[in-house]
C-alpha cells in the first residue's frame, strides 16, 4: 500500500499526540493510534513495518510471553519494537507502528513483538501479517466480551494470514486446532508427576471429540482441557510436539532441546509462557544456549508476580485474572500444590463494573474454589463488593466456614489474615495493579515484620 497524504497526516498527528501525552505524563499507548486510524483507517497497512514480526495471542500468558520474548531478543542485541507498555488492540498496534517509524514512515526497527488481543485479530492481521504467531491457550474469559472459547477460536482462525507460521500449545486441546492449513509447530510439557488421569475441575471445554463428539479420553490432564487426549472412537488425538520440555517445578528447571533453562517461577502457567517463548526462538533459529543465557538475566515483571521472604514467611503477590475462571483455577491449583501451610487473600472483583452497575459474577461459579479447601490452606480472606458471592462459591467448594473472612472494603485485606501460615498468598485481578494491589502487598509485608518484631 502506498503512502498518501492522509497517511502522513495520520502518522504525524499520532507522533505529535504521543509527544504531548508524554509531556503530560499520560499513557501514550492507545490514543495516538486511535487518532491515526481515524484519519487513515488503513494506516497499519501503509506504514513500513519491521522485517520480522512476532505476534502473541491467547487467553492467558500473552503479556508474560511477550515480555520474555522482547527481553531475550533485546539481550541478544536486537532493537525490538513492542506494545509491552500498552494497548493490545488495533489502536495499540497502530501506536507502536507509528512510533516505530520515522517521520517519512520508514521502519526504525528490524524486529517487532506484538501482543494481540484475540478479538482484535480481524482488525489487525489484514494489515500486520506476523511471521510467527504464538497462541498460548484458549479458555473461558470475560463472558461479556469473549463469550466462550469457541467464539474466540473462530475469531483467530478466520483471520490468521496464510503466510504466518503458528507456534501452538500442543497441550491445549482447543487452540492446537487453529489454522490447520498454516505451517505450524507445537510445544508441550511432558507428563509430570502432578498430572491426573481424571480432571478435578468443574468443567472441561474440550471434553468431547471435536470430530465425532464422543467423550475424549485424557491420557493425562493438567488443568481443564490442558493435557494429552485421544478419541477412542475416531482416532483424533493431541498433536505431536516438536518442542517437548521436561519441567521440574520444584527444582525450577526446564529441559528443552538438550538444554537446561531456569524457570522464573515455580508455577506451571508461567512455565508454559517461558516454553512458548523458547519454542518460538528455537524455531526462529536462535541457539538453545544463547536463549538460556539470556533467560538467566530476566525476571517476570512485578505486576504479574511478587515474592518476598520475611521473618521466615514467604509472601507472594500474584495476578489472578478476574472474570477468567480458568486462570483463577490455575492459580488456586498452584496454591494448593505448594508445600507448607498457607493463607490466601482474594481480591478478584471487577472494579470497573462495580462503579455504576453490578458485576456479572457467573464466572465465579465456574472457578475451582474447591482447590482452596485443601487442608494446607488455613484461612481465606475475601475483599471487595462481591465478597459474599465469593464466600458462597468457597462454601460450595467445601471450604470450611470458620476459615473464611470477608470485607467489602479492599483496604482491610491485609488485616484479615492472621499471618500464622508459612506462605501468604495475595491474589488480585490485573486491573488492581499497581493500585491498590502493590500497597496492600507492602502492608502484608509490614504486618509480618511487625508481628515478628513484637515476639
Amino acid at each position, binding site marked *: 500500500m502506498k503512502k498518501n497524504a492522509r497517511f502522513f497526516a495520520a502518522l504525524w498527528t499520532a507522533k505529535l499526540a504521543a509527544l504531548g501525552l508524554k509531556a503530560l505524563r499520560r499513557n501514550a499507548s492507545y490514543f495516538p493510534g486511535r487518532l491515526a486510524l481515524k484519519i487513515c483507517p488503513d494506516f497499519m497497512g501503509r506504514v513500513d513495518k519491521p522485517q520480522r514480526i512476532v505476534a502473541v495471542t491467547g487467553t492467558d500468558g500473552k503479556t508474560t510471553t511477550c515480555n520474555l520474548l522482547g527481553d531475550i531478543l533485546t539481550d541478544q542485541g536486537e532493537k525490538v519494537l513492542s506494545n509491552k507498555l500498552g494497548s493490545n488492540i488495533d489502536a495499540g498496534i497502530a501506536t507502536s507502528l507509528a512510533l516505530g517509524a520515522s517521520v517519512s514512515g520508514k521502519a526504525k526497527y528490524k524486529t517487532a513483538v506484538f501482543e494481540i488481543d484475540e478479538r482484535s485479530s480481524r482488525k489487525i492481521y489484514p494489515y500486520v501479517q506476523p511471521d510467527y504467531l504464538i497462541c498460548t491457550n484458549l479458555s473461558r474469559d470475560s463472558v461479556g466480551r469473549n463469550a466462550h472459547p*469457541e467464539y474466540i477460536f473462530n475469531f483467530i482462525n478466520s483471520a490468521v494470514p496464510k503466510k504466518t507460521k503458528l507456534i501452538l500449545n500442543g497441550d491445549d486441546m482447543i487452540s492446537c486446532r487453529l489454522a490447520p492449513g498454516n505451517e505450524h509447530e507445537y510445544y508441550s510439557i511432558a507428563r509430570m508427576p502432578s498430572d491426573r488421569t481424571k480432571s478435578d475441575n*468443574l468443567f472441561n471445554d474440550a471434553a468431547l471429540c471435536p470430530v465425532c463428539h464422543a467423550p475424549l479420553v485424557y491420557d493425562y490432564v493438567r488443568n481443564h482441557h490442558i493435557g494429552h487426549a485421544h478419541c477412542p472412537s475416531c482416532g483424533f488425538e493431541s498433536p505431536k510436539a516438536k518442542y517437548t520440555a521436561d519441567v521440574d517445578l520444584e527444582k525450577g528447571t526446564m529441559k528443552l532441546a538438550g538444554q537446561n533453562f531456569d524457570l522464573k517461577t515455580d508455577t506451571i502457567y508461567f512455565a508454559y509462557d517461558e516454553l512458548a517463548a523458547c519454542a518460538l526462538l528455537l524455531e526462529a533459529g536462535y541457539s538453545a544456549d544463547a536463549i538460556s543465557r539470556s533467560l538467566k538475566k530476566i525476571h517476570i515483571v512485578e505486576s504479574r508476580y511478587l515474592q518476598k521472604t520475611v521473618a521466615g514467611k514467604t509472601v507472594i503477590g500474584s495476578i489472578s485474572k478476574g472474570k477468567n475462571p480458568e486462570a483463577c483455577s490455575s492459580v488456586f491449583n498452584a496454591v494448593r500444590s505448594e508445600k507448607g501451610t498457607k493463607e490466601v487473600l482474594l481480591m478478584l472483583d471487577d472494579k470497573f463494573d462495580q462503579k*455504576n*452497575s*453490578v458485576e456479572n459474577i*457467573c*464466572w465465579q461459579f465456574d472457578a475451582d474454589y474447591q482447590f482452596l479447601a485443601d487442608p494446607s490452606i488455613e484461612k481465606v480472606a475475601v475483599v471487595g*463488593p462481591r465478597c459474599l*458471592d465469593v464466600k458462597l462459591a468457597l*462454601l460450595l467448594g467445601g471450604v470450611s466456614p470458620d476459615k473464611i473472612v470477608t470485607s467489602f472494603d479492599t483496604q482491610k485485606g491485609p488485616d484479615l489474615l492472621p499471618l500464622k501460615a508459612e506462605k501468604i498468598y495475595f491474589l488480585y485481578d490485573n486491573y488492581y495493579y499497581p493500585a491498590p494491589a502493590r500497597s496492600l502487598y507492602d502492608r502484608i509485608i509490614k504486618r509480618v515484620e511487625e508481628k515478628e518484631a513484637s515476639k
Partner: protein
Amino acid sequence: MIIEILYPSFGNLFGESSGYLYLERCVKLNFPQAEIVRTEINDRPAFADRDVDLVYMGGMTESQQEMSIAALKPFKSRIEQLIDAGTIFLAFSNSVELFLSYIQDGDRKIEGLGLFKEYSARYMMNRYNGIVLAEFEGMKLTAFKTQFSMIYGDNSSEYMCKILKGIGNNKDTQLEGLRRKNFMGTEMVGPLVILNSDFTVYLLKLLGAEKPALVEEEAARAAYAQRLKEFEDPARVVVNSH
C-alpha cells in the same frame, strides 16, 4: 424421583458448571433416594423412556446449540408430552433457544424444536450484557444477561417472569422467557438456582418437598440480600459502559 441433566459436558457455560451441581445437591438433600442422570450428546436421554421429574440444561456454544437440536429432534413429541404432563424443564441461557421455532443467524435459518412459536435472532458481533431484576411468582430474581441472541414473538401468554430492571426477551419487551406449565426457559444466567434461594425452594416444592432445605442456605440468602440491595439501587445501571 429422577433428575436429568442434559449435556453437562458442554451445557455448563456461564456458571452452570456449578449450577447443575448445586441443584443436584439440593435435590439429594431433600430427596436422598433421588436418581441423578447425566446425559451426554451421544446418549439416549432418560426422559425418552422414563418419567423423569426434572430436566436441566445450561448455556452452550452456538455449534453445540445446533448439535443439541439435532440430538433432541427425535424426541420432540416426547418432550411435548412431558411438558403437558407437568414435568419440570429448566432451560437457562441460550439453551432456551433450542425449543423455539428457529434461530436466525444472518442468512442462515436454523430450525429449532418448534415447541414454542417464538424465534431468536443471533447477532454474533453484538453481544448484549446487563443485569436483570425480575418478578417471578411473587419473588424477585437477581440475574444477568450475556448473550448474542434476542428472542422475538409474542410471549404475553407464556412468559416466565416480568422484568423490573433490565430487558426481557428483547430490548422492546419486559416479558422474559417462556413458561408453559412447568417448562421454564430464560436467557438469564446466574446461575439462577445458586443466586436465588427462593427460586430453588420453589422448584423443590414443585418436586414435592414440604419443607425444602437448601445447601449453604444462610450464605446464599446473605449474598442474595446484598445483591438485591444493589440491583434495586437506581444509581446502578443495567448495562455497564465499561
